[in-house]
């Protein structure tokens, strides 16, 4: 062999050996780095369709005094209707601890609540009907996390906490091939579970002794073996391990026993959003999950009453500050959690025909599948990413009115990136979002 040929072939072989390990059987190009920005992500869908004019643009004053550093007074015509809320539990505004995307876009698809939730949880725009009680057709962030994070974690590490039932229980896993219930999140609608219906039907259940349990295990083991047709994931919802089921069972007992009404001391009582956040806090304290998604939707009263919408925005603002304060008190989650706050969609610029007692017109959200149909203002939202200094850029703003930066479908890949498993997701699934990760500008 000639010296030149030998050197050429040796060089190619060396290059091949260097590159080959990174072309993996799954088809992705690079092995997982596993580098995490934080070990916990809490994503708060805030809070049922919020108009930027009323949130980050302060047209009626700063309704989000816990989130945004702005001293504009609430418009005097609606100010008397605002509930007096406890002072900011943090002593600072959340935007000072994170990066605010002031004009974030819900770019495509109908601005319906279920559709908006689906987009936020799958990272893909959807044109499904506004209300359809079926699992998404593409994987959710929960399934990406449980399938592609290394090591794979149990369902107690992954929660979807919804403030209501309707179609929302369907969002903890998809019907996508290769994903599904086996990788789904624990779903809970606490205000429905820990309700009077729950008290009547699943509180104070019969408790078997350890000896009883041993006999039960034998009996059930035998009948299940004979039947040989397991009732498992999918048909049985999502599955937890037996030891995790025991923890969950005890958690449910504790919640029934220890839940007190109005634990936050809110004038007039906690609304559904506050209750949902307070239950999510209990889940965080008990299970310290790596991924938890919680929503609020009480501002959707805006369809009928603008002033109540404004008031509920303030309550949602207080609730999210309470949530962050709680996270910072949980060993293992404090200083190791990223909080993402974003509405699922916005609201119309122009009001509808429903005028409240303060003379304000109510607001719908009508931007539809066709980008020429409905009020496109309903596509304008914001996104705030809060996290530890050194990880998240503190006090940064991205985008401005008319200059959007980032969009809804980026939240899923951003969560995957924070938890360090984004490179494990086969590229073809999330390509549009992964190619355009402006949200990652929030991180160092």
């Amino acid at each position, binding site marked *: 062999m000639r010296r030149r040929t030998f050197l050429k072939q040796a060089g190619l072989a060396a290059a091949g050996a260097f590159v080959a390990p990174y072309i993996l059987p799954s088809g992705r190009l690079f092995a997982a780095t596993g580098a995490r920005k934080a070990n916990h992500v809490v994503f708060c869908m805030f809070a049922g369709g919020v108009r930027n004019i009323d949130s980050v643009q302060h047209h009626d004053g700063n309704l989000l005094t816990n989130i945004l550093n702005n001293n504009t007074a609430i418009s005097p015509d609606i100010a008397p209707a605002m509930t007096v809320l406890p002072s900011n539990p943090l002593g600072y505004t959340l935007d000072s601890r994170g990066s605010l995307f002031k004009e974030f876009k819900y770019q495509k698809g109908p601005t319906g609540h279920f559709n908006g939730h689906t987009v936020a949880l799958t990272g893909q725009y959807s044109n499904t009907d506004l209300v359809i009680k079926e699992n998404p057709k593409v994987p959710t962030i929960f399934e990406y996390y449980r399938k592609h994070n290394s090591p794979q974690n149990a369902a107690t590490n992954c929660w979807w906490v919804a403030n209501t039932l309707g179609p929302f229980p369907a969002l903890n896993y998809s019907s996508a091939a290769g994903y599904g219930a086996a990788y789904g999140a624990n779903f*809970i609608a606490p205000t429905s579970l820990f309700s009077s*219906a729950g008290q009547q039907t699943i509180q104070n*259940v019969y408790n078997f002794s350890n000896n009883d349990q041993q006999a039960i295990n*034998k009996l059930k083991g035998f*009948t299940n073996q004979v039947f040989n047709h397991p009732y498992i994931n999918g048909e*049985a919802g999502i599955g937890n391990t037996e030891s995790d*089921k025991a923890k969950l*069972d005890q958690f449910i007992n504790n919640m029934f026993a220890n839940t007190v009404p109005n634990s936050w001391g809110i004038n007039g009582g906690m609304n559904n959003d506050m209750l949902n956040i307070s239950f999510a806090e209990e889940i965080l304290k008990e299970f310290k999950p790596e991924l938890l998604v919680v929503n609020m939707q009480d501002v959707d009263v805006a369809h009928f009453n603008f002033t109540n919408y404004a008031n509920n925005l303030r309550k949602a603002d207080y609730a999210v500050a309470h949530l962050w304060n709680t996270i910072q008190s949980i060993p293992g989650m404090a200083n190791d959690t990223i909080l993402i706050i974003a509405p699922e969609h916005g609201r119309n610029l122009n009001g509808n025909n429903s005028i409240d007692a303060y003379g304000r017109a109510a607001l719908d959200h009508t931007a539809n599948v066709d980008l020429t149909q409905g009020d496109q203002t309903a596509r304008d939202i914001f996104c705030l990413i809060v996290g530890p200094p050194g990880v998240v850029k503190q006090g940064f703003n991205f985008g401005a009115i008319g200059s959007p930066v980032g969009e809804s479908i980026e939240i899923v890949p951003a969560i995957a990136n924070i938890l360090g498993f984004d490179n494990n997701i086969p590229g073809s699934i999330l390509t549009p979002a992964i190619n355009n990760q402006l949200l990652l500008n929030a991180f160092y």
Partner: protein
Amino acid sequence: MNCIKNILILLIFSPLFSCQKEKTFLYEVDPVNVNSNGGIKNNVKSTTEFISIAYADLKGSNISSSELQNLSTVYTAFGDKKLIEDRIIRKFLTDPNTLLPATISVNGDTILFLVNTYKKFFNREPNEFERYYLKELIKTNTGIDSRIIYYSMMTSDEYRYY
């Protein structure tokens, strides 16, 4: 002459009636799928079916619409259905109106108790193996009562199918 003719006819046709090789017949059974007694149940009960049937099985009456609504709400509000079903059954078992056979029924004519229990929950009779195994299990575990047996069967896989 006739006699000769008959003999000729006999000679001509005799090979047809001579000894023949005996035919062998093989009798077989068509392929049949053999299932256990509960194996033909492939359909999962719906939420409403599960709740209504469990209620009727334990209380001997139909569930009211308000109770069904409450149970459906709770059932939908948690993702791990087996866990919630487990709690629903355990709640039923605390109700004084729940119809639980006395211990004497379990330990007396155990086979009769098993047959009745299988019919009640699985809509079939236990096979010989099930009768033997469960009778022995009950005999050797004096702590097993009807509540334990009912709970075990109602939270087993077979109860969830029809």
